[in-house]
């Protein structure tokens, strides 16, 4: 596709785009921290339940220690999210053309 010239202009869109210079989007937190946190918590709770599961509960799940396994998998996944965020922090957004004081 060629790149000759700008897309068509529209006053409503241009207004909103101009306002966007004040955007606070850079202050958005990183969702990986929340996913990691929730899954670590779930992992710990469910793993503990799994360790103390009674025979009846294991039999209900066709003999699979599902709480233990699911708990450990969720814990690992949560830790992976936290580790990923720690190793590869979010790239700072490109600087706006005009950075307002606030």
């Amino acid at each position, binding site marked *: 596709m060629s790149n000759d010239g*700008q897309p068509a202009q529209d006053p409503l869109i241009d*207004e909103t785009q101009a306002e*966007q210079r004040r955007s606070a989007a850079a202050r958005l937190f990183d969702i990986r921290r929340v*996913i990691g946190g929730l899954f670590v918590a779930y992992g710990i709770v469910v793993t503990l339940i799994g360790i103390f599961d009674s025979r009846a509960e294991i039999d209900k799940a066709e003999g699979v220690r599902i709480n233990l396994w699911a*708990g450990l998998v969720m814990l690992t996944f949560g830790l992976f999210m936290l580790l990923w965020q720690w190793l590869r922090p979010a790239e700072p957004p490109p600087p706006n053309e005009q950075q307002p004081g606030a």
Partner: protein
Amino acid sequence: MDGGGLRLNMNGLDYLILALYFVTVLGVGFAARRAIRTSVDFFLSGRSLPAWVTGLAFVSANLGALEIIGMAANGAQYGVMTVHYYWIGAVPAMVFLGIVMMPFYYGSKVRSVPEYLRLRFNRPTHLLNALSFAVAQVLIAGVNLYALALVMQALLGWPLWTAVVVGAAIVLAYITIGGLSGAIYNEVLQFFVILAGLIPVTVIGLVKVGGVNGLMDAVRDSKLGEAGLHAWQDTGSTANPLGAQWIGIVFGLGFVLSFGYWTTNFAEVQRALSAKNMSAARRTPIIAAYPKLFIPLVTIIPGLVALVTVKGLGAESGDLQYNNAIPLLMRDLLPNGVLGVAVTGLLASFMAGMAANVSGFNTVFTYDIWQAYLRPGRSDEYYLRIGRWATVAAVVVGIGTAFIAAGFSNIMNYIQALFSLFNAPLFATFIIGMFWKRMSALAGFWSLLLGTLASLATYLLYKGGVIDFNSDLEESFWGAGIAFVTVAVVAVIMTPLTAPKRDEELRGLVYGLGGVDLKGDVLAGDAVWYRSPLLLGVIAVVLAALFYIPVF
């Protein structure tokens, strides 16, 4: 099966898991608040999100519980043919959206899908689409809410109205406060929680029936028989579980219905518009296609397991309807602990569906109706405030719809069928308008209007018994096809008779006129080969084709 109801035996720890989730969802909403200063921050997350976030939100917005429960039900009822809804009925359209259409959506900086119609055609076309979208979203939000309440009532024993109000209040809080960022971040979280809930059901279900081979043997002995294990084999005629020929599957489901839904539904496209640059926007639906390839594993397999293990599944009413396939397996197979996670996943998916409707509605209402026609020229803060109020209004109307739905049980099906009629003509208008620069503004309006009426007429004549189709599915294939042809014919007849738009007005909106910059805002890291939308898209489509081989 004692028919002892669907009530799950939830204990305190299960409720702890559920409560933890609700608290987190609200926390995400509050934490997203500080990143909102402008209307674009509120409606489009400031166009700042990375592709993996928007991609997972894209798939999650579609992963409402109606979808999960419905696809498991289809799995039990139609067998392996249900994969068509994913592999041919979703993946190609998602890839097409990313590769072909997204450059026009994202590049033109439109703030919504209806807004594209305003720039490409004219204000009447825009208003027609904006109004029908807005009405559809609030009504469907109500349907989602009612379905959520039904499940909470059946599984947890909550009174219907408590469940409606609690569900609505949570969605209302996190979208009003956190805007689209709140919605999208929660959708990403929901995506993982839904999987964490569905995978244990699938795994234990497979163990119970003796693995994949055991499941296949059992399905052969079930009422589906051998046909339940093949996706294409019997599609030369309509003598297959789905009652559809291959031509209907390929063109009806794979082309007209799925392209109509995935490429023009703003509740989906909005997720891509919130991406941080062109490359991320194009990758959004393509990244979403990968989970979509695998979701049938956790919906259709449980459906089949339920078919072969739950005696009497498939009743017309009561607890043994196909729609209860997943809840029944949860009741029978999951011990406390993972049970709490599974219930949380189910409730999460209901809220994901409703949140997508509400966040799509508030944007279209504010930008496309309020700003464009009712109160133009106000400040950005003003529209931000209107957006918050629109969110409140949408949820209140949704609660109203939920109670109407509670009174007339069939109304849910009608609402969904009614609005799916709008997709095919809309897609036809888009695709012709995007690739045929001569198509005039007036032709756009009449194509969309007459195409929608054609679709509606087919549906009403079918329902009224005037014309006959093998199944509702076949009706929707044909209705969509008729709408598509109507749009094309009207466009071809009207365009030569009406004035064209000038090329400068169409730059960036129509193929072949330039004005689309695919590389301008790309970050250094986005240029690497494995982030190429084209490559990722082609791989997704090839995988979808390969996946058919074992279930041909």
